[in-house]
């Protein structure tokens, strides 16, 4: 089995009073065991919704179509009980804001133990030992004392460490990190990323990292998926991506991201990120902001151009 997770033509549409919002509109990618995949995009690109679709953590008015193959089984065909057994057990998730991700009235230790207890993977005593061990592993000093404390006694960085401990305690095959460092101080950001990478290498966990920061993505991941307006515009291994970026939006992202040891001047992408309610089904979503726009870009969906087994771009420029 080559892929741990394969997403095929995933479509997530929200049916609201004001109309249908096509947050994710047909994306496909694969993630190999032990690898890290980054999904990069601006806010509103659908990157968060795409991973929440995997976890099936969306409100009832969201309709998800396509296939999400986890070890070959389609998660979208699972009923509530089956998906519950996956969540927090074989696929775990870390969220953006550690300050609000922990229940303020429940002790930290209890919250960390819960994945083990809820999935009946350990007795209370074993869970406690494991939780303390996890707290130490994610770099929280005097873990035994910290175990019985409440979230308000922890700083933001410490809370994100707790979240990581909580996500990894049940030794999941896949860890989804949804902008795990966005709300943290810059110095803490690097520490948390390092921690995720360290643990991943040690345990062989696969990781999906959601980020708007291309620099972060290139630093930690094996494979990069760039999303715009609910669709993928380009996907490639990090190597290919850095060597040969093809999509105009990817160019824009690279030019607006500071890269270490380079003296290039930064230039922002002109225009605004798209309003998902106004996106058309037909045409390239980036067309309105694209500097290399051609007439057909707005009328026809961009073709899938495969440059290698691993490098795909969706753009009329390369036909």
């Amino acid at each position, binding site marked *: 089995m080559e892929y741990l997770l394969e997403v095929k033509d995933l479509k997530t549409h929200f049916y609201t009073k004001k109309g249908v919002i096509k947050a994710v509109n047909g994306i496909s990618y694969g993630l190999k065991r032990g690898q890290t995949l980054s999904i990069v995009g601006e806010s509103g690109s659908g990157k968060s919704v795409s991973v929440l679709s995997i976890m099936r953590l969306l409100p009832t008015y969201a309709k998800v179509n396509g296939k999400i193959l986890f070890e070959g089984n389609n998660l979208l065909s699972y009923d509530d009980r089956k998906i*519950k057994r996956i969540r927090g057990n074989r696929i775990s998730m870390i969220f953006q*804001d550690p300050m*609000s991700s922990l229940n303020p009235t429940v002790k930290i230790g209890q919250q960390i133990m819960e994945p083990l207890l809820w999935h009946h993977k350990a007795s209370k005593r074993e869970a406690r030992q494991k939780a303390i061990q996890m707290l130490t592993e994610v770099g929280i000093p005097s873990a035994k004392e910290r175990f019985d404390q409440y979230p308000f006694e922890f700083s933001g960085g410490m809370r994100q460490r707790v979240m990581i401990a909580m996500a990894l305690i049940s030794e999941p095959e896949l860890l989804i990190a949804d902008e795990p460092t966005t709300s943290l101080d810059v110095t803490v950001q690097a520490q948390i990323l390092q921690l995720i990478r360290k643990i991943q290498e040690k345990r062989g966990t696969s990781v999906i990292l959601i980020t708007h920061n291309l620099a972060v993505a290139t630093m930690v991941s094996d494979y990069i998926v760039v999303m715009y307006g609910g669709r993928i515009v380009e996907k490639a291994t990090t190597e290919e991506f850095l060597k040969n970026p093809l999509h105009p939006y990817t160019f824009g992202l690279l030019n607006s991201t500071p890269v270490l040891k380079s003296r290039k001047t930064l230039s922002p992408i002109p225009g605004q990120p798209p309003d998902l309610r106004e996106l058309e089904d037909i045409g390239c979503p980036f067309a309105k902001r694209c500097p290399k726009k051609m007439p057909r870009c707005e009328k026809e969906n961009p073709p899938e151009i495969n440059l290698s087994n691993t490098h795909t771009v969706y753009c009329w420029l390369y036909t």
Partner: protein
Amino acid sequence: MLKYVVKRIGFIIIALFFVSLITFILIKSAPGNYVETERLLSQNVTDVTVPPEVKAAWEKAYHLDKPAWQQFLIFIANAARFEFGPSFQYPSTTIEKIIMRTFPISFRLAVMAIGLALIIGIPLGIIAAVKKDTIVDRIAILLSMIGTSLPNYVMAVFLIYVLALELHLVPSIGWGEPKHYVLPVLSLAIGPIGSITRYMRASLVETLNREYIRVAWAKGGGFREVVLKHALRNSLIPLITVVGPQLAYLTVGTVFVENLFNIPGLGKFYATAAIYRDYPMVMGTTVFFATIVMLTNFIVDIIYGILDPRIRKRSMMEG
């Protein structure tokens, strides 16, 4: 915490002093006296001839021969020791004995009503919150609104009619057996059921939107783990602040139900005392009820402080 407790007790003492003073002044300025009470009680409206020496003895017994300020001080000093002396209606016993005999009945009614309200209100609130914006939720809101806005004695009328007269489930009159508690307790409970349902719904709806609830779903929790363990926890502790005042007011609210069902509780005696201008009894009971209400609210606030870890830990840190 200690500082807060002392402050609250101080407020209660001052408030009770004012209540006593106001009640005393009002009653001193009220028309009627012991003789008139006797007359009302004996229904002998026209001709009451009381020998002056008997009248003097009566006045001495009720301290009515002393100046008003002395009477007040005597009342305060005695009330502080829970001694109110004899009443006009029942000269052979003391008011505190009447209170000790009748108040447990009223209090039991109030506690049972609150208990019932919690048993019904909490699940109803949870259902309404989980099924938010569905027809179930709408009905729950409407019912709780009706329950909170109608007085308990009107509720009692409808309950008697349906449960006793139409369905013959319980007796509508009588006192002394457990089955006689059903209608009064139900009538008293409907208001609190409404308040508790409304509170639980509002609080849970807010909590279920929190990030840490999404985290709990992501950890693989189901309804039991996420709603009952995580979300409910944050709603149940503040529920005490809703229930406390309800209990306090219900203790007084029994007055109406006791009169309607002819239950020999303190409320019944209180009303009778007021009708017959039994001033010592009215004063004693008013101050007693005021004390109970304030103490209940005070105790509830203390319990709340102990239960909420954030308040508890902070106050401990402050010393």
